């Protein structure tokens, strides 16, 4: 009978997508939760032993969660704030008419198009203190000796620079689309009322752009928090453990320290944190809209 109901229902068109989603998204997530209660080495995955909450006790009790959380926050906040500011600024510039605007709009996308590996490797060479443009010429001119990546105080922020470079085009593109959707009449009316550029930006652009900004913020936050390639290629979590953000630490636990169960537990904690943050963002967005 349900088959007959399904036959006439529009949901039958979603069936294939639901099945694929269930296999490739839902099942791995459920299995990750399950495996967080087991201990097993990556070189012998079949040899799983149930340990209950032992992995979670290890994650919370070892002190490494606090360290990786602080680093992840530094990495995410710096990268997201930087890319949002630069992205919005670039979008505002590109929304104005100037010669070559089309070419600039295309070139702005270049960092976004580069594969993570290529971009991060390029920046690593640039920051190298012996051969890099930044590390060997520009920074020493300002009295800074050594690579940004090899100092524990600056390493995570150096990684953030690369992330900002990579993410800014996406934010700029989203903001540009949002800006172009704002009715011109609003600005004209504001001009008639004697509003200056800053007031127009504050009272028209930002409110009108806020849904777009919020979406960009959520995506930028989640993508950055999950970002593994850039940090791993640049520093492998070093120097020491100065850039061991959560995803790098999870990788290290699973593939280097051969503690896959603890890695799963840390991944579960991390995912729950991201879900909570995304839910807060979403509530904020709904609150603003209402």
């Amino acid at each position, binding site marked *: 009978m349900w088959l007959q109901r399904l036959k006439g229902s529009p949901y039958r068109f979603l069936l294939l997508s639901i099945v694929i989603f269930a296999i490739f998204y839902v099942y791995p997530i459920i299995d990750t939760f399950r495996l967080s209660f087991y201990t097993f080495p990556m070189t012998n995955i079949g040899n799983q032993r149930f340990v209950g909450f032992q992995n979670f006790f290890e994650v919370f009790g070892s002190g490494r969660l606090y360290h990786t959380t602080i680093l992840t926050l530094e990495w995410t906040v710096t990268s997201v704030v930087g890319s949002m500011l630069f992205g919005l600024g670039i979008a505002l510039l590109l929304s104005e008419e100037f010669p070559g605007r089309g070419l600039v709009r295309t070139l702005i996308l270049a960092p976004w198009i580069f594969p993570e590996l290529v971009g991060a490797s390029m920046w690593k060479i640039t920051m190298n203190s*012996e051969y890099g443009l930044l590390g060997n010429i520009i920074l020493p001119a300002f009295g800074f000796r050594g690579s940004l990546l090899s100092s524990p105080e600056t390493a995570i922020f150096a990684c953030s620079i690369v992330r900002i470079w990579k993410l800014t085009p996406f934010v700029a593109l989203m903001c540009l689309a949002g800006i172009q959707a704002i009715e011109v009449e609003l600005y004209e009316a504001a001009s008639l009322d004697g509003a200056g550029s800053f007031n127009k930006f504050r009272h028209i652009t930002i409110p009108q752009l806020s849904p777009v900004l919020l979406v960009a913020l959520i995506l930028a936050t989640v993508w950055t928090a999950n970002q593994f390639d850039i940090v791993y290629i640049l520093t492998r979590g*070093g*120097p020491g453990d100065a850039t061991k953000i959560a995803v790098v630490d999870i990788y290290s636990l699973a*593939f280097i320290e051969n503690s896959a169960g603890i890695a799963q537990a840390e991944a579960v904690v991390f995912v729950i944190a991201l879900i909570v943050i995304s839910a807060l963002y979403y509530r904020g967005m709904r609150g603003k809209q209402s």
Partner: protein
Amino acid sequence: MSKKAISKMLAIVAIIIVAVAAIGGGLAYYYLTRPVAPEAEVTLRAFMLMPADTPGSVVLQGYMDKFENETGINVESTYVAYEEWKRAWSAMIAAGTPPDIQLLAGPTEFLPECAIGAVAYMNDLKMPDGSAVYDGQQIFGSSARLAAIPQGLIESSTFSVNGKLVGVPLDVGTSMLVWNKQAFIDAGLDPNNGPDTWEEVLADALTIKANAPAYYPFGLPMAREWNLARYFEILYYSKTGQPIIDENGKVLVNTTDVADAVQWFFDLHNVHDLTNPDPIDVNQYDNRALFRDGKIAMMIESPHFLKAVMESAGKGNFSTAETSPFGFSLVPAWEIGGRRISWTLADIMYVTAYSKHKVEAAQLVEYLTRSKNLYDFNSGWGTLYPTTEMADKPYYANNKWFWDKIKEQVTGGNAMGTDAGLIEAGFADDLLMTNLQKAFMGQITVKEALDDYAQKVTVKEATAREFL
């Protein structure tokens, strides 16, 4: 749309469908009926810890191809850069396609594999005709060849568990002190005599800093890679001469002596400013590049690797000792309580416990590591020094003085020992590298770094799996 246009469109679609069907049918007929070589009954997976398209991997692949032609056993090779090997290895096992043989970089990587039971015994394997596939004496060939090789080299390069063979060397290298002769000349030092002790290293480095400031007196790679663990290994052994653990399984890395030795080494940079300016950003390959470019005066390095690097850059005439651009000698000793170590490090090849074709896998290991092939790396990367049989190969004969000097000085292996009965977690442990970097940056003391490592490292009893 008119009927004529519809008809025309349908005709074009029909022609396209017929054309695609004809091409597809033709291709299918070709692939189904072409003569195909019979599939090999056995396919071995070889996991090689070296990047693809390097001189060593090209030579190795050549021998694997020869093995396939001679035996009919198919070999699928995977070449992996050092930093990625654990991830790739885990992925192969998780995917149900574990390697049959593996090549790993020395005891630091091989011994932990023994600890998790990933190795198989090779002594008992028999060919179909009943002859042994591999016995310990075949590693270096005949007894005449064996006699030409220092016992220490053999001891440091072969591994056994409970007296049974589990790992054999593909190649053997050494770490020694190397110095830029021109830097020594510029600083007013004798270019043919390097320092014998670490204290003399410091004195010479200070002289170079004062008289030849264009050079970094000592090249120090502190990047989070295998070289960092190897430096610690060298310092540890030159100071203590002991294995990392004692016979009771107690970890010995965190004695005050060892901490002082490591601190002394770090002080070369942190106190005396005698090294490249940013060691954390520098790995062994960067160090070699700096030496090749004439920026470093002294460092610990494998002379034959360095020779290959400089020759490939056209920066060396190694035909005689006098024309060689760099000198080399054993790793320095400590003036008090230390020893002048003769250091060797072998890349170990073994049959994995996961292999379902252990006899064939052992055949492949034997083929790749037999002496004739073992020394035939004429690309400039290869093994430490030749047996009398290989001495006339161009790679050795053209630079005889070089290899004779290494042979004269390197008389024994490292102190790790080859009976992998008690296995430490390995010097290349990520925790050790993290802690050493933290100590180098002053975040913790060296003693705290080593204490933390000693407390957390797991000492396990080695196991190897009997094959069924």
